[in-house]
């Protein structure tokens, strides 16, 4: 019954196929065949894949499956840090009337920064046609020409579109970290406006300076870097920039209504713990993924991240138990996050011993910042973004310069590092001076820019909701929803 139809269909396909093959022959004259790579070149390319090196003649423009797979996984892991890791970590720490505002801010920033990144951000950080130490270029605006072929300025084996999405996740979580300091008292629109300007003035230039191929402080990859500093996964770019900006913004914003008089305890420590676990898991993508390959450097970063985090979590809990009588969940969570923050710039550059030392410092110093420093000065850094990320990020950048181990990462003594002097600093010591310069630039940029942007937003659309809105909670007023139906 179907036979006539099937016959007809087969005939039609046959005709179409003949036509296509004829036109193909007619329209494309056979190109002059390029010289086929020799067997040696093909083997060399495969070895380069295993060693994460330059493939040479064969396999150029092709992503390597293993490296690409790890980077797509890492990209998803870093997104998981923000959604929902950071959102729940912060969301649990606010009062129940403001839990949704934190989630909305994290979601809003994710969407907003993605648009900025697609249009300009990626190109301004990782483009190259400006030949500038401060900004990338304009060639990748709107992700033009960002395809599955690798951008060999940054990775021989990872698709550039994957690389751009991976780096996008860093651009998302950085402003999301600021939310912690200004939680419960800033208008949603004001946050979006602030973040939009802040990305262009602080994040994009800073990320280029530290990670861009012509970046001012990119000691590992830029032979012409004037400051041969190192930052593996974002101690300066992510944690210092967000942390110091958070302090300035929370000072300009002022404390929450009732701060110091009313109880502002976390409404759900369980959510906070769940978020912390997600942050820790996601951070493997953040740190080990920053090798931009599934190679030995990534393996080292994976190991150091685990050690420093576990040591810091345990140490913070132990400090609380000894000096206060209780090892609290918030203490363990704070220690874990502080450990992750401090190991971030160091994870691909220090060995396991360095990681354990970093873990201890990561607990002690941010603990003092969150308890003593904050109490002394009385600023309302609501969820301790400054105490953990600014102090932790700064500490990490410095400790990276002291504990760096040339043996764990060949790039520390590679050709660019020899040219700009990094290799000498790693072998002879003294890298911490370059690290201090990078810290100074990051700190000044974050503080000055945040001051200007905050006053700009304040003068135009105002930073805070009315006192009545703040008292009732941001959830019902700003977002029209309640976290917990009563």
């Amino acid at each position, binding site marked *: 019954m179907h036979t006539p139809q099937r016959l007809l269909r087969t005939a039609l396909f046959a005709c179409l196929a003949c036509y296509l093959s004829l036109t193909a022959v007619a329209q494309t004259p056979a190109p002059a065949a390029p010289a086929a790579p020799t067997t040696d070149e093909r083997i060399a390319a495969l070895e380069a894949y295993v060693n994460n090196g330059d493939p040479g003649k064969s396999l150029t423009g092709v992503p390597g499956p293993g490296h690409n797979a790890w980077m797509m996984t890492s990209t998803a892991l870093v997104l998981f840090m923000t959604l929902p890791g950071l959102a729940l970590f912060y969301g649990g*720490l606010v009062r129940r009337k403001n839990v949704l505002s934190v989630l909305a801010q994290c979601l809003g920033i994710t969407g907003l920064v993605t648009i900025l990144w697609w249009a300009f951000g990626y190109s301004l950080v990782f483009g190259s046609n400006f030949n500038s130490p401060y900004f990338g270029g304009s060639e990748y605006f709107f992700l033009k020409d960002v395809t599955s072929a690798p951008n060999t300025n940054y990775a021989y084996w990872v698709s550039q579109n994957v690389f751009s999405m991976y780096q996008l996740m860093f651009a998302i979580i950085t402003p999301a970290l600021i939310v912690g300091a200004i939680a419960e008292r800033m208008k949603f629109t004001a946050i979006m406006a602030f973040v939009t300007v802040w990305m262009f003035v602080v994040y994009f230039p800073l990320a280029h300076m530290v990670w861009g191929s012509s970046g001012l402080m990119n000691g590992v990859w830029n032979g012409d870097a004037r400051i041969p500093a190192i930052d593996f996964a974002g101690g300066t770019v992510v944690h210092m920039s967000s942390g110091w900006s958070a302090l300035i913004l929370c000072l300009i914003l002022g404390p929450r209504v009732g701060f110091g008089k009313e109880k502002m305890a976390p409404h759900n420590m369980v959510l906070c713990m769940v978020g912390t676990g997600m942050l820790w898991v996601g951070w493997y993508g953040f740190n080990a993924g920053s090798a931009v390959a599934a190679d030995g450097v990534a393996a080292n970063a994976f190991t150091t991240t685990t050690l420093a985090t576990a040591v810091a979590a345990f140490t913070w809990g132990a400090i609380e138990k000894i000096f206060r009588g209780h090892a*609290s969940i*918030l203490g363990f969570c704070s220690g874990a996050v502080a450990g992750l923050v401090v190991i971030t710039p160091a994870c691909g550059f220090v060995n396991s011993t360095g990681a354990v030392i970093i873990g201890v410092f990561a607990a002690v110093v941010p603990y003092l910042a969150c*308890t003593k420093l904050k109490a002394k000065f009385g600023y309302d850094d609501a969820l301790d973004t400054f105490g953990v990320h600014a102090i932790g990020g700064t500490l990490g950048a410095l400790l990276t310069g002291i504990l760096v181990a040339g043996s764990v990462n060949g790039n520390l003594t590679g050709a660019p590092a020899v040219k700009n002097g990094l290799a000498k600093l790693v072998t002879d010591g003294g890298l911490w001076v370059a690290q201090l310069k990078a810290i100074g630039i990051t700190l000044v940029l974050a503080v000055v820019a945040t001051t200007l942007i905050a006053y700009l937003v304040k003068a135009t659309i105002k930073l805070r909701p009315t006192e009545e809105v703040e008292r009732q909670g941001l959830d019902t007023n700003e977002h029209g929803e309640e976290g917990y139906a009563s």
Partner: protein
Amino acid sequence: MKLIIAIIKPFKLEEVKTALAEIGVEGMTVTEVKGFGRQKGHTEIYRGSEYTVDFLPKVKIEIGVADDAVAKAVAAIVKSAKTGKIGDGKVFVVPVEDVVRIRTDERGESAL
């Protein structure tokens, strides 16, 4: 008839219930409440922030009993809820004018 209102430590509820069942009390109403007496509250510390929590969780038990059973019921509650530490709670006994069993319209002690 009397209404016995007992405020006890939450973890003592099972023991009190068992002790009352043993002396023939057949029903009770239980509510989770918060409050403080001489025990006062406790302190919670979240990183650098310290908060005093005044109201502690307690359980309130309400039972209606016939006059001749009041002494036994109060004794059973006091014995089973006691830890000897501050914060064990209190028992109030208040007179009851009337009781109605809704299903049968019975009144007074026969409705208990």
